[in-house]
């Protein structure tokens, strides 16, 4: 049985905010099934009380002094915006009728 179905991929694509055509979903499901079959090998040695490693080197949070420093200007911060209005990012409707 496949580890991952087309419907599973459609759900994941929704979570990841990626529109996918039926064809893309089919293709992705078949590929992911093979990849998941291969990567599931990690479970062979992950039993017991092995602690997880999330980061290669032991580190703790580093905080900077809370002092005001020069940063990007408003114009610089908006320089890559796909749309802007009155010195702000202009975004499509977030709430309301379009939902």
């Amino acid at each position: 049985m496949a580890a991952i179905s087309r419907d599973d991929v459609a759900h994941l694509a929704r979570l990841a905010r990626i529109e996918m055509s039926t064809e893309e979903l089919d293709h992705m499901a078949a590929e992911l099934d093979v990849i998941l079959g291969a990567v599931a090998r990690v479970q062979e040695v992950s039993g017991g009380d092995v602690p997880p490693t999330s980061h290669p080197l032991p580190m703790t949070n580093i905080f900077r002094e809370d002092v005001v420093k020069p940063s990007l200007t408003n114009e610089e911060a908006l320089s890559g915006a796909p749309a802007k209005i009155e010195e702000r990012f202009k975004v499509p409707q977030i709430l309301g009728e379009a939902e």
Partner: protein
Amino acid sequence: MSSIRLSAEQMGAALAKGEITSVALTNQHFDRIAQVDTAVHAFLHLDKEGALAQAASVDAKRAAGEKLGPLAGVPLALKDVLTQKGIPTTCGSKMLEGWRPPYDSGVVTKLKSAGVVILGKTNMDEFAMGSSTENSAYGPTHNPWDLTRIPGGSGGGSSAALAAFEAPLAIGTDTGGSIRQPAAVTGTVGVKPTYGGVSRYGLVAFSSSLDQAGPCARTVLDTALLHEAIAGHDPRDSTSINSPVPQVVAAARRLDVKGMKIGVVKEISGAGFQAGVQTRFEESLQLLVEAGAEIVEVSCPNFEYALAAYYLIAPSEASSNLARFDSMRYGIRVGDDGNRGAEEVMNLTRQVGFGREVKRRIILGTYALSSGYYDAYYGSAQKVRTLIKRDFEAAFAKADVLVSPTAPTTAFKIGEKSDDPLAMYLNDIATIPVNMAGIGGMSLPCGLAPEDGLPVGFQIMSPVMQDDLMYRVGGTLEAALNSKWGHTLISQIPDLQVR
């Protein structure tokens, strides 16, 4: 007389002696790029104006008698995953087409202050995901040794630029081998420094716990000079190591490995490696023995799970990191017709903006992190990461450095593996463990495989913040190989058809 085939160190010396100006040297490289890059396609963007301005500024400082660093006025190719203020930065993706970052990355800040001349941005697999540059939204880069073959990836543009004499220095980034594997298949040198050794500020993140920027060049010494120019603490990167930079230039010049123990990792050589790759690897071991090193065999039994763990950890982190491409603040926006909501525009933008491999990894990572699967996949992969670190600790108790072939094969044909993700992922089998443990790794050329005449890479791995050890061994091996051949490997590259 063109100087493009000199090493960066020689260029620096010629500049210091006033034998050539940086403006002239920079122009020679732009001429070379104009002649060959239609065929190689190493560059995505050239910054002729900015490069020549920097060159002129270095020339003026030199004329005024200012004391300059060894790479002042020397040209460099920058991987398109690092920001440079005002210069297009695409990460090989359609998503960032036209984006000009408003700030310099930590690496670029260091390069500029070292007087390095940045020629332009190099091609790469989209968001550094791949081993061939075939995943670039802007078309593949071609290997200068054989234009029908891949130059490695993800940093194939940087490695190809070096091999084609379009630049003597380049910057790469290495998440699972993206500096070392391209170096291996193009007959160049590439180093992934210890994690945290070089700032990640302004490096567009793929997998934050694995990503590391590093130096690439045609010789070990040039790589060391560039390493020292870009390394060091950066308070803007919270994972940057705040301790002195290892003395890699002195180590590269040392040319002595007497008494060093060199560990051959049993699990990443031999079976599964191309015969000619293995042959050249073993010949190099012999040269190191003749130079006074002792070879010991070490076993890292959990390395066989490294690839599987990597293809869970890296996509998981990527699925989170790439969430920032939401079409709201930068990058392209698709389908914003005034009627669609933000989420729909986001979905459409990400459908168009991301290529197949990137989508595959985002979906895989989303799956591995989802509740119900987290422990079985991401959690298990993190445990494997611990086991790999322990394997390295045990191995470094028996040897000063560890070695292996860098990649299992020489450069394959463009298109040969592009429909088989698993076959493609196998390219990284020998390079991935280094990233998992955060240690240093180098690839340097150790000959041409007899069966296909293509370059083979020799990998050297050194413990955390002991990057100097791999330079010491690499410098010694390079000198021994050059003396055996009577020439450098890169001097044997076939002439490119000049336009």
